[in-house]
């Protein structure tokens, strides 16, 4: 067997999971390669503004400042001393034969790996709302990135809608920064939120902080709403129409709308790496299969929100565990995993509470009017998608071939979860898992033809 020096472990993603995975590998004497799409390591939740911005970490990360700063400093120290190889602003677009195709500003090249740790994170899970294709409708995560990384709001008068911890957190962050918020609309009914309490009590401080933030929103916050429609003119949104829990129609004037129902895992690379998937009833989405510490298929390890949506703290723990499992399998000294496995179990209990309290409104998808745009990339409507069921038998890959939902530039990242609900509903499947899972296809990001034409460089 080759010595640690010649082993190449590649970590994809430099958020909390990727950074802790890299740290664990470095501590064992390996020099991992870290490939990340960001300019600076930190991921989305601990994203750093570009050089030259001056807000202190306390302003950017609030109660999570110490964690954010620790992650940034840990990573920067490893990169500065050459203990890892950092490839920022680089996307892995394909995986084949133990090699990754990596796209950066200079073009495309192949990087070989002996072991692969995928820490690809998550993105907003979005339910289409009629009118959401207009300019000025964003994911909640997008509004947080604009604030954190650019110091800006994406409109003058914002409505935030959806459900999950980010809805409240982002509203408070925007208010603090001086943005105007017209309403915060939560589709989770209050009684449902209370049902999540046993799970949420696994992290009492976290839950309490959420309640305090909710109080700061006072009259802006409404639970148990139904979203009806985004009214727009040629510039973008002018109002969001919604129904309160008593069914009364409400209209809130705004010029931007943020939408998000907690998160969905980014799983395209796990798919290309050959991982198996299972439908997860808690998270109402397909997630890759792995053992308790992140072993997926031989040589491939998964960590963070791309595997299980436990949030940033869970991602740090999962990153350490995946790297420890990798070291163990390589026959190298690995850190003890018992403590982190206990932590992960507690964080999983909390995450299930979150999923229970802030559910994905599956029934809203089935009820969307036929003219609602489902695929934002190509303007495919719910009616067109429903028509494919007559020809395709209610399976999402057939629906994609026939109706192009999932074939646009985002490859279904923002429509496939709602699209599957619509397909399953039209086909009368009873459960959405029966509609199947959209297969991943390389390249997982659009690649300019010029990058494919140049001579492919293979490292190692």
């Amino acid at each position: 067997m080759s010595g640690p020096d010649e082993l190449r472990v590649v970590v994809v993603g430099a958020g909390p999971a990727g950074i802790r995975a890299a740290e664990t590998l470095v501590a064992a004497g390996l020099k991992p390669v870290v490939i990340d799409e960001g300019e600076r390591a930190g991921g989305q939740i601990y994203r750093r503004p570009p050089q030259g911005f001056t807000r202190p970490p306390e302003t950017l990360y609030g109660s999570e400042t110490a964690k954010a700063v620790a992650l940034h400093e840990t990573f920067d120290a490893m990169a500065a001393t050459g203990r890892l190889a950092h490839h920022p602003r680089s996307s892995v677009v394909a995986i084949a034969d133990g090699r990754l195709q990596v796209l950066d500003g200079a073009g495309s090249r192949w990087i070989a790996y002996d072991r692969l740790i995928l820490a690809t994170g998550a993105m907003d899970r979005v339910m289409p709302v009629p009118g959401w294709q207009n300019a000025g409708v964003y994911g909640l995560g997008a509004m947080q990135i604009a604030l954190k990384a650019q110091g800006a709001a994406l409109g003058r008068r914002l409505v935030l809608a959806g459900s999950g911890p980010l809805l409240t957190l982002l509203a408070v962050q925007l208010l603090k920064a001086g943005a105007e918020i017209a309403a915060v609309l939560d589709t989770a009914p209050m009684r449902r939120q209370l049902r999540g309490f046993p799970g949420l009590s696994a992290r009492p401080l976290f839950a309490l902080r959420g309640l305090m933030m909710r109080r700061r929103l006072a009259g802006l916050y409404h639970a148990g709403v139904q979203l009806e429609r985004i009214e727009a003119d040629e510039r973008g949104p002018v109002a969001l129409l919604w129904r309160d829990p008593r069914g009364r129609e409400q209209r809130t004037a705004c010029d931007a709308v943020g939408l998000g129902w907690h998160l969905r895992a980014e799983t395209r690379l796990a798919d290309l790496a050959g991982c198996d998937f299972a439908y997860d009833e808690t998270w109402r989405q397909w997630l890759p299969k792995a053992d308790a510490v992140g072993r997926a298929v031989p040589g491939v390890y998964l960590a963070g929100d791309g595997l299980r949506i436990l949030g940033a703290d869970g991602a740090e723990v999962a990153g350490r565990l995946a790297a420890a499992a990798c070291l163990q399998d390589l026959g190298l000294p690995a850190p003890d995993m018992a403590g982190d496995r206990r932590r992960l179990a507690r964080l999983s209990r909390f995450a299930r509470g979150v999923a229970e309290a802030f559910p994905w409104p599956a029934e809203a998808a089935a009820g969307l009017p036929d003219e609602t745009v489902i695929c934002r990339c190509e303007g495919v409507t719910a009616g067109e998608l429903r028509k494919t069921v007559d020809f395709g038998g209610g399976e999402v890959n057939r629906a994609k071939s026939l109706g192009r939902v999932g074939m646009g530039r985002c490859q279904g990242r923002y429509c496939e979860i709602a699209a599957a609900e619509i397909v399953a509903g039209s086909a009368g499947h009873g459960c959405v898992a029966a509609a199947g899972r959209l297969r991943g296809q390389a390249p997982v990001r659009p690649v300019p033809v010029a990058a494919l034409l140049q001579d492919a460089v293979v490292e190692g």
Partner: protein
Amino acid sequence: MGRLVRLTETDRAPLRFVLDGAEHRALAGDTVLSAVLSVAPALRRSEFGPEARAGFCLMGACQDCWIWQEDGSRLRACSTPLVEGMRLLSDIPGDWP
């Protein structure tokens, strides 16, 4: 009028860029998306519908924010830093076949 509202961090050095032939000012550290949306409501027209597009995820996942450059190439506005003198177009370049 722009869509984006600068709430803080406005003491950065100015940068110039050109959108549809008109010169505008932005700030060093802006992404192309921030710069364009600080002076315009959208980045481009949708090629599949009547509406305009102004980005959606801001993290490189949705590919909604691409914009033309005058030389005919396109770039992802949310993850591309603005560079002094960049020349951008909200519509297809005139001589596009």
